[in-house]
C-alpha cells in the first residue's frame, strides 16, 4: 500500500492557515515522512496529479473560476478538509455579503473591471461536500496536526464544539468578563485555540466561529450590563466568521431589536 497523499489548495484567504502547516516546524519532516505531499504550491514546486487521499482547502469561494476549481478538487480527493474561517464560514471577505441588502435593490454584481468577482464570499461547504472542518482565523496548528494524525490512524479528530470558556478555565485564566468587565465572546465561540485572548487579558473576538450553543440574547444582556452597546456586539459578530449561520442570525437579530 502506498503512502497517503496530501494536497493543499488555496482560495480567497491570507495564507495563514496553510502557513500553519509549515509552522509545525519540528513535526514537518515527520509529516513529510508519513504522507506524500503531492501538491502544495506555497512550499513546493513539485506537483503530482491526483487523485489525492486528503485535500486541505484554505480560503473562501469568491470568483466563478474558484467555484469551478473547488469542484475539481472534490473530484480528485478522497477526503476534503476545510481549514480556517475563510474556508468554513467565508472569512472576513464575507462582509461583502451584507452589501446585498435592501439598498441595492436588484441584481448586485461587480463592475466590469472586476467582473471576475462574485457578489458573495462563501464557505467551501456551500459548494461541495466537506469531510472535516477546522475552525479558526487562523486554525490551531495543534488541531491541524491532530487532524493529520487522526486521518492516518482512522480516528475522529479531537475537535470539541463546546465554547472557549471550557478551555479558559482549564488554562486557569481568571475570566476577563467577570474579573475585568471586558466584553468577551468566549461563551458563544467554539473552543480550539486554547483560550488565547483571555490569557492575554482581552476578550475573545470570536475567531473560531460559533460554538455548539449560542445564547446571544443572554450575552447581549450581560454586555449591556458592562456598558457595551449593541452596535459593538453586532460588529464583534461580523468579523472573521460573519457569515457563519449562528453569528449571522444573531447579529441580524440584535440589529432588529
Amino acid at each position: 500500500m502506498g503512502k497517503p497523499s496530501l494536497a493543499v489548495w488555496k482560495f480567497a484567504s491570507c495564507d495563514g492557515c496553510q502557513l500553519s502547516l509549515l509552522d509545525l516546524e519540528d513535526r514537518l519532516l515527520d509529516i513529510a515522512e508519513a504522507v506524500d505531499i503531492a501538491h502544495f504550491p506555497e512550499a513546493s514546486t513539485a506537483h503530482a496529479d491526483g487523485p489525492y487521499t486528503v485535500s486541505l482547502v484554505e480560503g473562501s469561494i469568491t470568483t466563478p473560476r474558484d467555484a469551478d476549481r473547488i469542484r475539481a478538487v472534490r473530484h480528485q480527493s478522497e477526503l476534503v478538509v476545510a481549514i480556517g474561517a475563510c474556508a468554513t464560514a467565508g472569512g472576513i471577505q464575507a462582509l461583502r455579503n451584507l452589501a446585498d441588502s435592501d439598498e441595492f435593490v436588484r441584481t448586485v454584481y461587480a463592475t466590469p473591471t472586476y467582473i471576475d468577482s462574485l457578489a458573495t464570499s462563501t464557505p467551501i461547504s456551500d459548494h461541495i461536500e466537506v469531510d472535516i472542518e477546522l475552525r479558526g482565523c487562523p486554525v490551531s496548528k495543534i488541531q491541524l496536526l491532530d487532524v493529520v494524525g487522526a486521518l492516518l490512524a482512522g480516528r475522529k479528530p479531537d475537535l470539541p464544539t463546546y465554547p472557549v470558556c471550557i478551555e479558559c478555565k482549564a488554562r486557569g485564566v481568571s475570566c476577563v468578563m467577570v474579573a475585568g468587565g471586558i466584553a468577551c465572546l468566549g461563551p458563544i465561540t467554539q473552543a480550539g485555540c486554547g483560550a488565547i485572548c483571555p490569557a492575554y487579558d482581552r476578550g475573545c473576538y470570536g475567531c473560531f466561529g460559533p460554538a455548539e450553543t449560542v445564547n446571544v440574547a443572554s450575552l447581549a444582556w450581560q454586555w449591556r450590563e458592562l456598558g457595551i452597546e449593541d452596535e459593538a456586539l453586532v460588529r464583534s459578530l461580523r468579523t472573521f466568521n460573519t457569515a457563519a449561520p449562528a453569528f449571522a442570525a444573531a447579529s441580524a437579530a440584535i440589529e432588529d431589536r
Partner: protein
Amino acid sequence: MSFVLKRSELDQLVTVLREDGYQVYGPVVVDRAIRYRRIDSIDELAIGVRDVQGPGRYSLVERADDAIFGHTVGVTSLKDLFFPPRRAVWTAARDGDSYRFEPAAPTGARVAVIGARSCELAAMSIHDTVLLGGEYVDADYEARRKAGFIVSIDCTEPGEVCFCASMGTGPGADGGFDLAMTELRVDGGWEYVGRYGTQRGEAILERVEHRVPDQIEIGQARSAVSAAAGAMGRELTVTGLPEFLASHRQHPSWADIADRCLACGNCTQACPTCFCVSTIDTSSLDGATMTHDVRWDSCFSLDFSFMGGRPQRASIDARYRQWLTHKLSGWVEQFGSSGCVGCGRCITWCPVGIDFTAEIPRMMERIDG
C-alpha cells in the same frame, strides 16, 4: 496539640517543604484574580488584598492591613492541582500486530498547598469518595493525593457568595489537612495559630521554629472562626432539597433559567467537585505509539450526552437541570453527600451571574404560591 507561628516562621515552613521536594502552591494575585500558583516564599502570596465577589462579578481591593489570607477562594481550586485539566491514563507502543501498554507514570510532582480553605478540603474529600471510594479508582488522582501536603487556613472573613456554613463544610476545617491555621492579628503583627492533622504534618512542623499557644490565643482563633460562620454572604436550605429537585424535573423555572444560561460550562469547570471527564486518544504520525488521555468535560457540552445519533440533552434547560440536580440531589444518592460545598465559585464565575441560591427559593415559591 497545637502551635503558633510568626510570619517569618510561616516562610520557614515553605522552605522546609521545598527542601523536602514539594512544589509549594499558594493563593497568588495573577492578572485580575487570586489563583493557586507555585511559590518560593510567602512574599509572593496575595498579601493585603481582599476579593469582592458577586454573581458574575469579581474584583480585588486593597486591604487596610497586610493579612496574607484576608480573602476567600480564588478562581482555581485544589481540583486544578490534584485533578488537573488533562493527563494521560496509559500509553501504548505498537509492534506489528501487538501492543504493549503502560499505565501513565505517576507524576513526580509532590504538591504542597498553603492556604487551602475548609470548603476545598470538603470538596477534596468528596473527590476521595468519588474517585477512590468505589470499586475502580483513579490511579493518577490517588498518586497525587498520597503525595500531597495540605496546609489549611480557616476563613475568618467569608465573602458575599460563600455559603459553606449552610453546607456544613466550613468556615473552619476539621479534617483533611496536614496542618491547619487561623491567621490572627496580634499587637500589630500576625500570628498563625495552628493545629496538627497528621503525623506527617507534625514531622514537618518539627523542623520549623514555633511555640505552643496559650489558651487565650486558641480561644481567639476559635471565636474568629465561629464569628465567620454567622457572617456568610449567602445561605441555602438543604433539608428536603434533594427530594424537591428529584421530583421537579419538569418545573417551569428550568426554562426561565435557560433563557439566561449560556451553557458555557464555567460553573462546572470552576466547581471544585465537578469531576466529569472525556477521553482522548492520540497516536504518533507513524502509528508506533499511542496515548489515552482524560480531559475535563462538562455536562453543559452537547457531546457529553451524545447517544443514538444525537445529544440526549439538547436543550439548555435539560443541561442546566442535569447539572444542578446532579450536584444537589443525585449526588446524595450516589455518594452520600451533596456535591456542593458552598464555595460560591459557580455564582461568581458564571459570566451572566446565575445564582442557584437565589433560583432555588424562587422555584420552591413558585410551587407553593
